């Protein structure tokens, strides 16, 4: 090795050219496995999925496979179940995100104060996040079941329900079942990100503000909120998209019922692909969902840009 080093300078241009190529290739060698995996197993099926949206692909029909142009989209425009699913998706996504965010922020603020047993409290509070999503769906479905679950009995005792019954079977309120499970399961995500952001705020800022006579509310408004704002914005954006796509809890708890009142677009896609095996139609709905989510993300980014430039 020492020999190699002492020889290196006079060896001149050839080796440095080789070394340059090797140095340029090095990062690509490290990234290659990840890139190959993503292209082969995510981008190729994604492109295929987009093409399916314009083809007649039904798994059980050997004669299907032909190009049908915009036929799926015309069918979609007339599909009232799809329109219902769009409205349900808005309900599902925004109620879940807002509640998860609010409680997550409160939890992060609670855990940001030092106290005895904080490590344990934090571990227990974050535990729901480790629960597999299908299991939290089943668990909450059981909690809402009047035969084995306590919630209907509590609601009856509070006078909110005439007699213990399953809210998952009531079309008017069924959506709150999966939302409750989602909020319980998702609070830790927000709490973890907010807590990380809170702990990154320099402590002396608070001390200085306290010396200057700022009260707790003033300190929260003028130090905590501005410091948390970027984390809040990005985690809410990412979470909104993620939850709009998150069909597990609905599939497990209600399967879109009763009377399609809990069907969101993502679970509708799954139902079309998995139960009806109509891959073409499922892909057309998926494409619409993708376009809507992209539009939403771009809208948010544009809003952020205008707000930043105004400042």
């Amino acid at each position, binding site marked *: 090795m020492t020999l190699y080093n002492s020889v290196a300078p006079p060896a001149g241009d050839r080796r440095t050219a080789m070394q340059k190529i090797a140095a340029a290739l090095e990062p690509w060698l490290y990234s290659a496995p990840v890139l190959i995996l993503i292209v082969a197993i995510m981008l190729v099926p994604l492109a295929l999925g987009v093409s399916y949206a314009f083809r007649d692909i039904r798994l059980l029909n050997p004669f299907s496979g032909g190009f049908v142009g915009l036929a799926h989209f015309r069918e979609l425009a007339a599909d009232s179940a799809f329109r219902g699913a769009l409205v349900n998706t808005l309900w599902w996504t925004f109620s879940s995100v807002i509640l998860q965010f609010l409680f997550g922020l409160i939890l992060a603020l609670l855990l940001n104060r030092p106290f005895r047993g904080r490590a344990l409290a934090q571990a227990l509070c974050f535990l729901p996040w480790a629960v597999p999503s299908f299991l939290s769906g089943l668990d909450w479905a059981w909690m809402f079941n009047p035969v084995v679950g306590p919630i209907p*009995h509590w609601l009856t005792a509070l006078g909110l329900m005439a007699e213990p019954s399953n809210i998952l079977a009531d079309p008017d309120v069924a959506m709150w079942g999966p939302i409750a499970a989602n909020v319980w399961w998702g609070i830790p995500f927000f709490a973890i990100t907010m807590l990380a952001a809170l702990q990154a705020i320099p402590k002396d800022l608070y001390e200085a503000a306290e010396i200057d006579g700022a009260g707790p509310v003033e300190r929260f408004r003028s130090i905590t909120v501005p410091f948390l704002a970027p984390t809040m914005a990005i985690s809410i954006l990412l979470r909104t998209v993620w939850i709009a796509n998150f069909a597990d809890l609905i599939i497990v708890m209600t399967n879109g019922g009763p009377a399609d009142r809990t069907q969101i677009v993502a679970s509708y*896609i799954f139902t079309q692909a998995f139960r009806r095996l109509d891959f073409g139609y499922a892909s057309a709905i998926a494409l619409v969902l993708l376009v809507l989510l992209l539009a939403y993300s771009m809208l948010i980014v544009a809003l952020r840009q205008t707000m930043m430039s105004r400042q």
Partner: protein
Amino acid sequence: MTRKRLLLTVLHRLAVLAYVAFALFPLFWLLKVSVTPTSLLYTEGIRMWPSRASIEHYVFVLTHSSFPTFFLNSTIVSASTAVIVTLVASLAGYAMSRFIFRGKYWIIGLLLLTQMFPLVMLIAPMFKMLSPLGLTNSLSGLIVVYVAFNVPFATFLMQSFFDGIPKDLEEAAMIDGATRFTAFRQIILPLTLPGIAATLGFVFTAAWSELLFALMLISDNRATTFPVGLLSFVSKFSVDFGQMMAAGVLALIPACLFFLLIQRYLVQGLTAGAVKG
């Protein structure tokens, strides 16, 4: 301590306690029903603890059902996914952390893109692609799919852990004549062990929980994973709550163990990332 301060402290502890109770209650209930004998299930429906606890449901699930197979399948799939993902993601995460090169931002953009689009979109094409390769109804097929799904996030996670390790360390080793890869393997990786553990835990839990692709890709009972097994159990024997919840508690164990191992790195790792950004 003034009276106002004391009051605030008490309120704070009560709020923490209330949240702990909210977080734990659904899990407690799962456990409670799983140890309630079937004969008491309906008469003692909403009691906080049955007058007589028993493990009969666990014995039944472990000896008279396919759950041990499902459990084994899920363990194989999740452990293989976690190991493969952590391996390739630490390579790519290292590249993202240490190199400045043309195309880097394209790679980051690509990784972010995969986090944005609906994965349900891939269910149908994935089935069509894997079925001629013989990868439907097989654990290897599931592993391949789960590896790809988890690699982007794991890469970002590993990158943030590498960012926390000073560059001088491997630069010193390289001046002493080690190749970069040797320095990476022998100096940097051992320092990232907590990060590696966190990534393993994350990916294991994610693979353990995945339901929709497993439902679509697997129809053979012998290759069924836990989520699919439990869901079909629910629709098949929807009367025996005790057995279902016992199976549910069993599904919870590995995920919770992993979580308790990694949870102290969670906030710490994310703090490092937040300081940087």
